[in-house]
């Protein structure tokens, strides 16, 4: 790690790293991308169990009433297969956005 002895001291604000108050410029834009990705991640992964907990009480007739995808209840397919694809897509979109952000800031420098 680089030592900074002899360098011009920075103000408290210059040294600030805070996920909830990101520095203007690259970091702020990076944090916006992170927030969007995390929101898309959290809503999908925790939204389904919360929805199921609210709407499903156990009864034999419940499964006859739900919609089916690939031979299983749609919520089952959503959790077993779709969400993994969704995670792959989120990684893909995050990388595309970060690549774009990084290259635009490197050009400016």
């Amino acid at each position, binding site marked *: 790690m680089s030592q*900074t002895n002899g360098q011009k001291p920075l103000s408290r604000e210059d*040294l600030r*790293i805070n996920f909830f108050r990101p520095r203007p410029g690259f970091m702020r834009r990076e944090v916006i991308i992170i927030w969007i990705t995390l929101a898309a991640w959290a809503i999908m992964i925790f939204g389904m169990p919360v929805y199921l907990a609210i709407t499903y009480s*156990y009864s034999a007739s419940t499964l006859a009433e739900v919609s089916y995808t690939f031979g*299983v209840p749609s919520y089952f397919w959503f959790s077993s297969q779709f969400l993994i694809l969704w995670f792959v897509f989120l*990684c893909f979109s*995050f*990388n595309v956005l970060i690549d774009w952000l990084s290259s635009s800031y490197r050009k400016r420098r």
Partner: protein
Amino acid sequence: MLIGALVISLVIGMLARRHNKGGYGTQVRSIGHAKIGAAIASNWMSAASFLGIAGVFFLQGYFAFAYILGWTGGYILLLVLMGSQIRRFGKYTAPDFVEARYDSSVARVFSAIIAIVIALIYCVAQYKGIGLIFAWMFGIDYTQALLFGILVTFVFITVAGALKATRNLQMHYLVLILSFVIPLMLIAKKLGYNWLFPQFSYGRALQDLPEKISSDYLFPWTFGTPYEWIALCFTLMVGTAGLPHVLSRFYTVPNNRDARWGVVWGLFFIGLLYWSAPAFGAFAQSWLVTSGTTLDPTAAKALADIIVIKTAEWVGLNSILVSILAVGGVLVAISTIIGLLVSAAGVVSYDIYYRLINPNASERRLTLVAKIVTLILALLVLVIAVNPPGLIAQITAVAFALAGNTLFPVFLLGIWWDRTNKHGAIAGMLVGTIITFAPILLGSLIPILPKVLPPTSSALIGAPVVILTMIIVSRLTPPPPEHLRRFLVEKVHSP
């Protein structure tokens, strides 16, 4: 077949070591993103993925998806919040990062001990898998099978160094995924379901079960409450993001961008395994029903961790194909154990012996200490694995809970809040360790504790509590040195 496969792996490991003397898995040429992804997936695959998931699905149906989604969704947290930043920080192991970021030897040693405990718990789960497979394969007692497993592991460590040298990881993944999916396709065919995509046709198999069994598998809350499902899933996700050997995979790639794109492929390759694993559990239940076989809960639990192999055997698959599955399970467990034991021994010899006990130790002495420590750790794992405390996936989940309650908050705040200091980090790791082990050690005295903080799922409450502890303690104590905060601004959070 087992001996043949082990010998081939041994030779590949020896050749890899010969060609990889300088880096031991941390230096690679520029390789494609798909290959990096295969390496990530190979590094990730353990007995918990290969054997454990199918077993949990066989016993608990929908509840098993908490494991699958926890172990895949964690890669999003890792990629988005920490991967690039920790890589730019430039420290390759958890203790290195903790010491550099928090400027504290105490914090370093604490994180080193946590990393060792995580490796030990992880290894217990792997040895359970090896013991069960060897016991089934040779018809011997489980304890004898464990001893044989230790012996085989040591032959690998001594002769081949490590199976997981980077150049074999892609081949390792390919062999494992084929040895998993091809028998599954043939099992589906034997049972009369679509064999081309058993990942989809197992839904039909579940539908064909008697109504009570079918609804137990398909209904979300038969085997656990929504709180238990969410807590487990969250714990495994933050644990994945804090697991030292997962994080270190980010450094074995030439540059940051390749590492990020490798995760996309890695997640897809891990997904191939996790899309397939529940099918083994479903087809096993299908065979039990159609053959009129009944298993009492104890017998079902005893078989769950080798249900992948038992299903192939039950449906009458060719014995070679059954053996391929068994060999795949042994290889994945052995390669995980070797990676973890070797790195844990390195941590003990350097972070504890060299740094605390004998700073004048020579390289030769450190190597000797590492070898002795490997042996001691393996024996310690053996003692715990003789009476395994749960299913393979459950034991592994405790390691994730520890990582999620300790290292994840330390990494997260270390990167994203400049004000976090060594006092906060040490207090956080202490609280996280207590939260992880209190339900296990005090559960009989305080029955509510394991209900609120299930040992496999304690990070839903634990991680936020630890983060809060770190914030409060850091606020009450002096800020970290300016050069550390400047480094964060100029190096870690710059493009």
